[in-house]
């Protein structure tokens, strides 16, 4: 599943689930076109490995950006597909039923409770195995900037630029939005004085940042609603100078306090 239509307003939809059911999607958020080509391949691999839907969550800027990339094919991995309903079930030990409601061949009733419990156990295994992130300059940072997707590219650029000028800022980017790399974020933020969340919405991922840090570090929002006249595109926030200024302002606020 892909969502590349708009800005970053669909974070909750992507990570909290867009339909009914006690479930999670794996959510991959590429930062640029090159990473999108990699993560899109991995999405299929992850979907087969975990038998779980995977969402590639990009944004309008990514969808409309043309970049030269070197396409590298992932090594092909074999996955167990003995569950697949390919018609041969009776010849292979019994009919297979592929059902989202826990219905099994020959069962009198739907075994929904054990089905959902198995699903939760799988979610825990996914969470332990698949959380991915990118971190830079966190060790001695005073301020850690957290961003995802296209906007993280602006944040990373600004942090690198400010570092070269001696400003002690760090950068953290979740690559998987679910599972959220909470433990890695907590480690990256262990010694910072403040965390600033840059996202193009009224404040959605900031919930996951706060959950990961559990009140140990002050968290502020330096992004916000920012869109063009069509409501789809990229607003004034998608500007290196604007992002740099907001990071600097957050850093100065904390330093003055």
């Amino acid at each position: 599943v892909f969502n590349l239509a708009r800005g970053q307003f669909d974070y909750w939809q992507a990570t909290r689930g867009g339909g009914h059911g006690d479930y999670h999607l794996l959510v991959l958020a590429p930062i640029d076109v090159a990473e999108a080509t990699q993560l899109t391949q991995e999405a299929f691999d992850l979907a087969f490995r975990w038998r779980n839907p995977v969402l590639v969550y990009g944004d309008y800027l990514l969808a409309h950006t043309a970049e030269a990339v070197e396409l590298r094919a992932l090594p092909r991995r074999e996955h167990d597909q003995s569950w697949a309903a390919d018609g041969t079930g009776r010849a292979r030990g019994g009919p297979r039923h592929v059902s989202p409601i826990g219905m099994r061949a020959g069962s009198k009733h739907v075994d929904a409770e054990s089905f959902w419990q198995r699903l939760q156990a799988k979610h825990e295994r996914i969470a332990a195995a698949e959380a991915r992130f990118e971190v830079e300059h966190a060790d001695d940072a005073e301020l850690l900037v957290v961003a995802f997707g296209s906007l993280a590219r602006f944040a990373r650029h600004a942090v690198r630029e400010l570092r070269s000028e001696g400003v002690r800022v760090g950068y953290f980017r979740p690559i998987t939005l679910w599972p959220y790399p909470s433990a890695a974020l907590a480690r990256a933020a262990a010694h910072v004085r403040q965390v600033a969340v840059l996202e193009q919405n009224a404040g959605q991922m900031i919930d996951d940042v706060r959950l990961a840090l559990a009140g140990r570090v002050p968290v502020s929002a330096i992004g916000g609603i920012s869109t063009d006249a069509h409501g789809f595109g990229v607003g004034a926030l998608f500007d290196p100078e604007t992002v740099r200024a907001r990071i600097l302002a957050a850093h100065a606020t904390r330093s003055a306090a």
Partner: protein
Amino acid sequence: MKGAIVPTERPPERPAQRTGEFAPELQLSVDHDLCPGCGEPIALRLLLELAAELGCAERAIGVVGIGCYTALGSSIGVDMIQALHGRAPSLATGAKRMRPDTLVFTLQGDGDMVNEGLQEVIHTAARGESVTCVLLNNGVFGETGGHMTATTVLGQRTKNTLDGRDAARHGHPIQLPEMIAPLGGVAYVARGSVHDAQAIVRTKNMLRRAFEAQLAGAGFSLVEILTMCPTGWFVPTARGPGYLDEVIASVHRVGELKRRS
């Protein structure tokens, strides 16, 4: 003595046999949880009998929609995929394209196929996919309480048309086979019924021709099967077959609409 005729001149020496005791090989359950007088289990039974008779028991995939008949899904003795409401023809398309040697059929109700998923079945037919879509038409959303569907006939009482379906308020019923038959990708279209023994035999022959068309790669096939829903129709259980024959089948006419060889 399975299948023996029970003598009637004296009281039976053993309890009467249930239809389930004659269950075909691919029917995993001998009873069902649907209402007394429901026609859907008969239709499923015909499908499963045919899958075996055509030698497809080990190369068949059923795609089940959402309705009362979904509860019958676990008694399907071939590989089965549970679809979202109305989307079975698209899943069947994918299954057939990846496994062209299999027999692929959908099992959908009128609420599923004609209300929720009308465009799915029309596009699948127009593409000429070699799958067989089976429409169990009882004229009501039985599973959710017996409300009007797109096939409910004028004058028919349902939970939300208590005074009968009124064309001015509720529009006219859709006769799906009549819509599908003219499309170029379509090989076989028929409407059968399960209201009596003769109709059941006739319907089984329709399903057989539909499956044969599919296995020959002739294109899309659709069999609509009128089924009784005495609960949804507000008629006594025993009156269900008669109501189907006199009221429902007077609008949704039984017969073959297209047979392309």
